[in-house]
């Protein structure tokens, strides 16, 4: 499943945003993990999108990629820095 520009977010549905750069290997691995697990995600390339870069730095307080934000559909967000399979699985309710 490819990244969507505008993900359809329904109430109670998890929505996933990943902040990336094109040359980041761990970003590629994280996206592959999403695709293998049929997770729909929105990608923001912080090398091309200044506002997205500022947003990522503001949310995470740091400048490393990837940063993943998992929203639970009820206003709560889980923020994960780096490709951390167990934490992603937990945040997305997937089997590790």
């Amino acid at each position, binding site marked *: 499943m490819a990244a969507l520009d505008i993900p359809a977010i329904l109430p109670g549905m998890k929505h996933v945003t990943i902040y990336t750069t094109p040359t*980041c290997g761990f970003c*590629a*691995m994280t996206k592959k993990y999403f695709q293998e697990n049929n997770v729909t995600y929105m990608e923001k390339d912080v090398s091309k999108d200044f506002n997205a870069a500022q947003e990522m730095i503001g949310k995470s307080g740091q400048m490393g990629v990837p940063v993943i934000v998992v929203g639970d559909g009820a206003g709560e967000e889980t923020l994960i820095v780096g490709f951390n399979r167990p934490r992603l699985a937990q945040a997305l309710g997937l089997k590790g």
Partner: protein
Amino acid sequence: MQQNDIYDVLIVGLGPGAITAAIYSYRKRAKALLIGKDFGGAVLVSGEIENWPGEVHTDGIQLSQKFEQHVKKYCTDISCFDQSLVTKIEREGNLFRVHNEHGKSYVSRTVIYATGRKPKQLGVPGEEQYRNKGVSYCAVCDGPLFGDKEVAVIGGGNSALEAILMLTKIASKVTAVNINPQFKGDEIYIQQLPKLANVEVVYDGVTAEIRGDGKFATGIVVQHKDTKKTREFPAKGIFVEIGSLPIIDPVKDLGLELNAYKDIVVSRNCETNIPGFYAVGDVTDVRDKQIVVAAGMGCTAALSAGEYLVKSSS
């Protein structure tokens, strides 16, 4: 323990050495387990790659994905692959017990150890405080975030040169700090340096401090090795490329022979001083830390392990 619970070969790592060892072991129909965290290992953060035979030009992401595809041609289930980190390896008589990060352990007659290396740190004030807040050990990953900003690259080898050449296309200015009076790396990179208008090279420079505003890094303080004069360079991104250390924590109690740099000493057949325990690639004392060398060693280690198994069972 049942005999069929024991692996013939347990391969630790997912870089080129481990992947090659796994391919050879699976194809020999050995009872083999490949265990490691991230496909590609250091290759994954290698950026452009132009010295892997058969690929005129590729990058770390693509090559790592090809490694995964290739190994999964032979193995797709948990009987031969465990995607987790190895935390400890210990001896049990003539066998080896390998523990993973989730508390699971495996027993094997032989081990091929291919964990590679981790980036070395500067150990200066501000480095920890501003880690991921400007200080990065992966120019390939984080470099694109510093478009039109001033950055610094610290180091004098190929990794530093690659980072400089990449960042010169992104950043407004690159300050390259080299502790030595010249770069040691591929001529193809070194020859490009004088042509780069936005690069200032500081030779004989010792990075003394990372400075910041409390939230993010803002610059570095560099001291001249001989004159001891200091200069401050503004930098929002500081890329540390000063070499690496072998990942030997899981085997520190095993009694392996190490050289002065803590690299595992191996023979030309990838044998260590412990019978049945082989090491390959960047974690060893091999002179050239190269993808193609690691892959070649992976082949050698798999064949050596196969020979050891035949001899020890007869």
